[in-house]
């Protein structure tokens, strides 16, 4: 009964999405106020029913309803309760329901925090979002129904994929989707602005906080994914340039460009057409990412079952949404005239270059990701594109971007003098050359020119960012600095920390495959790993072996590491649970391999990774920056002011 309610609720959600897209769009076009007014309640009703549907699916998992095929395939009575919740989005069908839920959450939020937006514009925005909803709910109902019954019901479930039985994976998909789907908001604002024919700065101002929030979620989602891959896949890496990773990273890059471009459009009223195009691209690339992940057109470590009907459906949907928006763009963008001029040396130019670098980086990653498919489609052969390509294309683009990132915030809008900028930056440039150049010599074990180069870049970014912050706060105190400004500062400090982490980890990490008998030890980067043998363990739904390693440094006890090798009882899948001793300045990582011989010896893989945490720390600081920017007083004041204005108008009318 509950699953049927879930399905029925999803159908009702579809009906409300249809109402939400048709009436308000038509109403805004023909000027019918009552149709325009339908937008908000329809959006909220849609959320209600999609949420009921999601709850019904969750309920089926919690009650072990194995008459529901999706539950039977992805759950088990022995599965710990926490994972019963996350199993809901553990496979294709459920993750789409989550997608739909997240989309309706964003839609309802827009309908709530929209007091400053004229009803007609809001109707168009919600109409566009409703259109996307229609597509996705239809996709679920037609090709991927999670409520499909299994007759006869299974006695026991096939259990959730062991890789997904993990805290990181509980949060990774929802955060990622919040980010992915969140870009629907600037997209819808852009489309609405084009439909209304008013591509002024207003749509940019309305979109900015939403874009920031979506970007924060996407950053957190990618961060969690990277962290999860690091400790769960047992390879010790944190980024693999896997097609699925790329399909979340490409929207991130373009979304970052969009945040910066929106700032120019809002403040200076220029880059109008480009910003609209970026807003379309960011969401389109999110959709493309969904297509790539869900259709199975690319091979990836994320082995999702592929179904041609599903791929065909998303492709058609992608073609309609993106193709449609690009056609509207070509029609409207030609009518945009920017009358704002700026000099070569100005903040506008800086942000333009930022956009160019980010867009080129995103394009080259997209190209590398799709290249195997293109080559295969042309019948030239079978190839795969790996990290060597991505690293050699991506890193050279990021170096000038980092240098630029230092100068950019210093520049004045419209026009600046070279002399003014130079007197400000040269001391910091010199300082970063000294500090960065000496860092590997003083702190690390050996000198590496690449490490010095990376550190120079990082110190440069950090130095200029702090200098600009102090300038902003001079005489007024840090309290007076706007949240927006704090957002930029934190975002850029995050980049500096991130660069340090990547540089030092990739150059100074050491790893070794070793075999140890109980009592034997191995020295790695000053740490002694002593192997104390392996014991049998039993978990809720798995059994396995647990190794014990005692780590000492110069005879001083540091920690005990217990890497595990699990075998999940139902899925029969072995899983390596690496042991990690995390620290701000270094990570120790040990993974259990195979038993060797009969004297209790095992093969082991051990790593020493200096400054690894700084990569994620940098990303966290960036997200904090995003939150600061999104909560800037300007946006709230804007809402408040319009409310007052409207109150005055209502009084006047009455």
């Amino acid at each position, binding site marked *: 009964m509950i699953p049927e309610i879930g399905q029925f609720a999803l159908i009702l959600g579809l009906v409300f999405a249809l109402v939400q897209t048709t009436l308000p769009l038509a109403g805004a076009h023909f000027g019918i106020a009552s149709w325009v007014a339908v937008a908000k309640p329809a959006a909220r009703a849609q959320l209600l029913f999609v949420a009921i549907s999601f709850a019904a699916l969750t309920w089926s998992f919690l009650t072990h309803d194995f008459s529901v095929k999706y539950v039977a395939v992805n759950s088990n009575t022995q599965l710990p309760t926490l994972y019963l919740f996350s199993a809901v989005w553990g496979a294709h069908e459920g993750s789409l329901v989550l997608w739909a839920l997240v989309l309706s959450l964003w839609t309802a939020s827009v309908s709530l925090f929209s007091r400053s937006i004229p009803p007609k514009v809001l109707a168009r925005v919600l109409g566009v979002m409703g259109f996307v909803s229609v597509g996705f709910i239809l996709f679920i109902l037609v090709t991927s129904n999670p409520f499909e019954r299994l007759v006869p019901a299974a006695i026991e479930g096939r259990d959730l994929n062991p890789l997904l039985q993990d805290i990181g994976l509980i949060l990774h998909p929802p955060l990622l989707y919040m980010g992915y789907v969140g870009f629907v908001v600037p997209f819808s604002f852009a489309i609405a602005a084009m439909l209304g024919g008013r591509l002024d700065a207003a749509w940019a101002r309305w979109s900015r906080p939403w874009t920031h929030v979506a970007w924060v979620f996407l950053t957190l989602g990618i961060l969690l994914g990277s962290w999860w891959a690091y400790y769960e896949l047992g390879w010790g890496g944190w980024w693999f340039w896997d097609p699925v990773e790329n399909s979340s990273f490409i929207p991130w890059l373009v979304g970052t460009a969009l945040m910066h471009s929106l700032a120019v459009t809002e403040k200076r009223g220029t880059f109008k057409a480009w910003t609209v195009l970026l807003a379309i691209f960011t969401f389109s690339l999110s959709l493309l990412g969904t297509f790539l992940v869900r259709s199975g057109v690319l091979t990836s470590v994320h082995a999702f079952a592929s179904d*041609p009907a599903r791929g065909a459906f998303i492709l058609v949907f992608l073609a309609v949404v993106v193709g449609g928006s690009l056609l509207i*763009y*070509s029609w409207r963008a030609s009518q945009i005239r920017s009358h704002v001029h700026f000099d070569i040396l100005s903040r506008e130019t800086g942000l333009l270059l930022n956009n160019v670098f980010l867009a080129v980086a995103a394009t080259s990653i997209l190209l590398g990701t*799709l290249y195997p498919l293109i080559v295969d489609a042309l019948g030239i052969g079978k190839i795969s594109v790996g990290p060597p390509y991505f690293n050699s294309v991506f890193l050279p683009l990021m170096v000038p971007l980092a240098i630029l990132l230092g100068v950019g915030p210093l520049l004045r809008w419209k026009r600046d003098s070279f002399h003014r900028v130079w007197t400000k930056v040269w001391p910091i440039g010199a300082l970063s050359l000294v500090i960065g150049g000496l860092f590997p010599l003083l702190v690390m074990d050996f000198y590496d020119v690449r490490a010095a180069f990376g550190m120079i870049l990082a110190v440069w970014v950090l130095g200029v960012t702090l200098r600009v912050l102090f300038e902003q706060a001079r005489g007024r105190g840090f309290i007076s600095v706007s949240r927006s400004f704090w957002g930029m500062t934190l975002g850029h400090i995050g980049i500096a920390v991130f660069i340090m982490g990547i540089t030092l980890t990739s150059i100074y990490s050491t790893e070794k495959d070793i075999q140890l008998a109980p009592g034997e030890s191995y020295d790695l980067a000053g740490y002694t790993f002593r192997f104390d043998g392996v014991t049998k363990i039993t978990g809720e739904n798995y059994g396995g072996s647990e190794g014990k390693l005692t780590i000492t440094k110069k005879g001083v006890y540091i920690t005990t590491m217990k890497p595990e090798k699990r075998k999940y009882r139902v899925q029969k899948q072995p899983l390596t649970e690496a042991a990690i001793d995390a620290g701000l300045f270094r990570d120790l990582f040990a993974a259990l391999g195979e038993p060797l011989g009969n004297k209790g010896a095992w093969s082991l893989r051990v790593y020493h990774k200096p400054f690894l945490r700084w990569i994620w720390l940098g990303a966290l600081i960036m997200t904090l920056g995003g939150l600061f920017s999104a909560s800037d007083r300007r946006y709230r004041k804007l809402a408040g002011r319009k409310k007052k204005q409207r109150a005055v108008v209502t009084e006047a009318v009455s």
Partner: protein
Amino acid sequence: MKRYLIPFAIFVVLVIFLAIGLKLDPSYIPSPFIGKPAPEFDLPDLHNPNQRLKTSDLKGQVWVLNVWASWCTACRAEHPVIQRLVSLNIAPVYGLNYKDKPEDAKKWLQELGDPYKANLVDRTGDVGIDWGVYGVPETFVIDKKGLIRYKYIGPLSNGVVDAEIVPLLRKLNAEAD
């Protein structure tokens, strides 16, 4: 106006590629051995270790090489399909007993029946490496000139045999030496 249509045009090209991509199987990797001479081997017979067989001995006829092992459960499932293929009497099927203990292999054949013309013992798996075997079972078709013309990875099914192997064997048999 035209310049603003560029993004749309690029997108159309992208969609076309994605549509073609939907029909392709990214995990399908054609064997680089197709059309190449079958790698040389010189291996003892399973039942008769003193008797050896070389690739060159088999020249002039169309033959099938089936890689199997007693420890391979998929081979057990495949076995009736091989038996059926042999009973069609189109081409001889040789077995390559891969990384297996001869006594286990003999027991396995005793239990399930031995349809093979001969079984060659690749105890160390060296021949398997020469032939590019990376999973058991695998099946090769070799033509009269000694060229590999077909390779199938994984257990054969009657469907694959009827749709691909039998027509190919018939065609190759009709070819001149």
